[in-house]
């Protein structure tokens, strides 16, 4: 009996416990199913619709799931973390998924349709985290608001037109810091007070919309503000001038979240697997998750010495959701994302380095057949929402093209690395590369199931050789990346 209970508890921990999620409706609070995976809350789209008097159905054109509620129409995709909200494409931090007939959507979707999570009952004693002061930091250029501290990821927020309210009754007090308003897209801010436990941000005229990014360690909810600031507020050198003592901070040029600086600078390295997901196993208890972390740390040191800013998706042995790894690279506006792995195969013959880049579809005639059918579908339905998602997919092709170049350069560099056989560049639909908004590859350094390669991969000397080899490839790619594009000749 004890064993059964223990197993049930472990199962709950592993699979994510099904909990209750209270949402505020006109008729009072309604509890719907909630589950958590990788620190993210997930709710069922059909239950949100039922609670708020809306509906869910499949789009007749594409078969994509649709949620219609409170005047909003959200078209979901279960293959990309992108949704269309009333015709506008919005990128989520997490990709919705189907579990049988249930469409599980991340909690952040509610923010886009202005549905509030029910505030705790005032009569109920405050949660242990209440009373903690959260920092709401406004970036110097006024385009980013970061809510930092314990509870930052669960605090309610609401956007009404150009007014953002963060916090609420029964929630934590919020201290505003960073640049003083007005700055960039923020016109003014009213900080929380004992009588009003919510901070109200009033956006400037040029504000258009916001996206949110959730980050962990420490918990941060980042509001990325989109829009255009008046010319007088944006003209300036790349470094903003120091603010006059009696004036608010004068912002520098705005950089949209997905625009990149012309030079390749930021590299996000992703040591594959982690925590209970050990990845491949080799002789003598070698584990992929440990060795790739070692390799990535050496890579970080080597690349940093050569002027790159290098960030790791994990720097310790911990589990991490695949989508979160790409989300992290996107939120850091990385120029390159490399997921580092070690390979395994039942074949004794398997050896060598492989570099993969993402594919949304195979490139043969078979894929063209499907593409033709999809194109016909779009023409037939003339569905602008679907078209918006298709266009988003098309934008990805630019990154895929660059990813192919990066993969070729890495593979070419590793071909020269002594004792590793060339296994060539390959393309496949990789979960960890899905939605990356930059050139991204998955590098399989060698085979842990090959005893000779396993021995090499475990040695610090060889790991340094791997780092040097990778550096060579990255410098080649930087040269390619940084050169200005020349217009095609007529």
């Amino acid at each position, binding site marked *: 009996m004890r064993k059964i209970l223990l197993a049930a508890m472990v199962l709950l921990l592993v699979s994510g416990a099904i909990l209750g999620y209270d949402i505020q409706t006109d008729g009072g609070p309604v509890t719907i199913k909630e589950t958590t995976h990788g620190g993210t809350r997930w709710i069922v789209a059909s239950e949100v619709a039922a609670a708020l008097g809306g509906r869910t159905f499949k789009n007749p054109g594409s*078969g994509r799931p649709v949620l219609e509620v409170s005047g909003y129409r959200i078209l979901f995709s*279960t*293959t990309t973390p992108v949704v269309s909200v009333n015709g506008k494409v919005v990128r989520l931090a997490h*990709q919705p*998924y*189907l*579990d*049988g007939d249930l469409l599980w959507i991340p909690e952040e979707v509610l923010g886009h349709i202005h549905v509030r999570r029910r505030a705790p009952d005032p009569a109920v004693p405050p949660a242990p985290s209440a009373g903690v002061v959260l920092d709401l930091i406004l970036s110097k250029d006024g385009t980013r608001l970061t809510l930092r501290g314990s509870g930052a990821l669960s605090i309610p927020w609401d956007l009404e037109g150009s007014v953002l309210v963060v916090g609420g009754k029964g929630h934590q007090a919020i201290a505003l810091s960073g640049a003083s308003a007005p700055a960039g897209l923020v016109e003014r801010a009213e900080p929380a007070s004992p009588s009003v436990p919510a901070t109200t941000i009033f956006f400037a005229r040029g504000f258009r919309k916001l996206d949110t990014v959730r980050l962990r360690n420490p918990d941060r909810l980042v509001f990325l503000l989109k829009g255009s600031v008046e010319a007088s507020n944006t003209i300036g050198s790349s470094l903003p001038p120091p603010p006059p003592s009696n004036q608010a901070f004068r912002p520098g040029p705005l950089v949209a979240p997905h625009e990149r600086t012309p030079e390749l600078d930021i590299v996000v390295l992703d040591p*594959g*697997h982690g925590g209970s*997901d*050990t*990845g*491949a*196993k080799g002789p003598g208890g070698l584990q*992929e998750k440990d060795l790739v972390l070692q390799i990535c740390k050496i890579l970080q040191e080597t690349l940093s010495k050569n002027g790159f800013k290098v960030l790791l998706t994990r720097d310790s042995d911990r589990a991490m959701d*695949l989508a979160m790894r790409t989300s992290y690279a996107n939120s850091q506006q990385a120029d390159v994302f490399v997921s580092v*792995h*070690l*390979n*395994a*195969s*039942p*074949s*004794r*013959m*398997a*050896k*060598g380095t*492989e570099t*993969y880049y993402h594919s949304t*579809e*195979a490139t*043969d*005639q*078979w*894929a063209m*057949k*499907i593409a033709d059918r999809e194109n016909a579908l779009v023409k037939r339905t003339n569905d602008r929402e679907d078209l918006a998602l298709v266009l988003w997919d098309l934008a990805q092709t630019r990154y895929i093209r660059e990813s192919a170049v990066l993969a070729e350069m890495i593979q070419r560099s590793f071909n020269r690395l002594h004792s590793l*056989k060339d*296994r*060539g560049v*390959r*393309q*496949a*639909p*990789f*979960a*960890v590369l*899905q939605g990356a908004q930059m050139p991204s590859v*998955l590098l*399989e350094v060698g*085979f*842990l*199931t090959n005893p000779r390669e396993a021995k090499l991969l475990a040695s610090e000397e060889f790991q340094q050789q791997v780092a040097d080899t990778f550096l060579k490839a990255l410098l080649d790619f930087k040269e390619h990346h940084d050169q200005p594009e020349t217009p095609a000749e007529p």
Partner: protein
Amino acid sequence: MTSPKRRPNRSRRPTPIPGTVLLFALCCLAAILSCSRDDAEEPVQQGEVPAGQAPNCVLLYPSAVDSEARFSTLPIYIDRLPERLQDMSAVIRRYLEGPVGADQFDPYPEGVGLRALYLLSDETLVVDLTGPVRSGGGTSTEVARVYGLVNTLCWNYTDLDGVRILVDGQEVKSLLGHLSLTAPLPPDPDLLSPLTRSRWRTREGR
């Protein structure tokens, strides 16, 4: 000044070739043959075909003698069933039993079985597997496991657009943490050996 070449003494009786030299020559020959096997004519696998019958099904397994583990064909004979889904089910079950020879390897661990099978209206086949299908690691293992089944099914049923894999009735993001399984996968002929790929392309106008 050069020393004159010594003329071979043809009158001497030829000495027999020592056994070690013969063994060495045989080893060299074997090494040359095995090294060139990737690019030379591929061995054609022979499956179970009863006397008097012709192969009526092709299974694609990763090659155990190719360092890139590309897929090669295993022609077999099975009792074909008139009902399409039952027939597909029979092919999958046979595939999960593994290859017959040592030149190909079974990408699936022992104990993996077919739990259910659905055919959607858009010619997407949903294969629901059960057992230790998520055990092991490595991209190559995962590619072999996923595309072994996808390519085999699309080879035998040309109308299929793609294959979706579920595990124990549930959608999984990935089997081993690399390939995305959140959408149906079309076949990938680039994973086939050169000979198999040419057969793939020439058959039925592909």
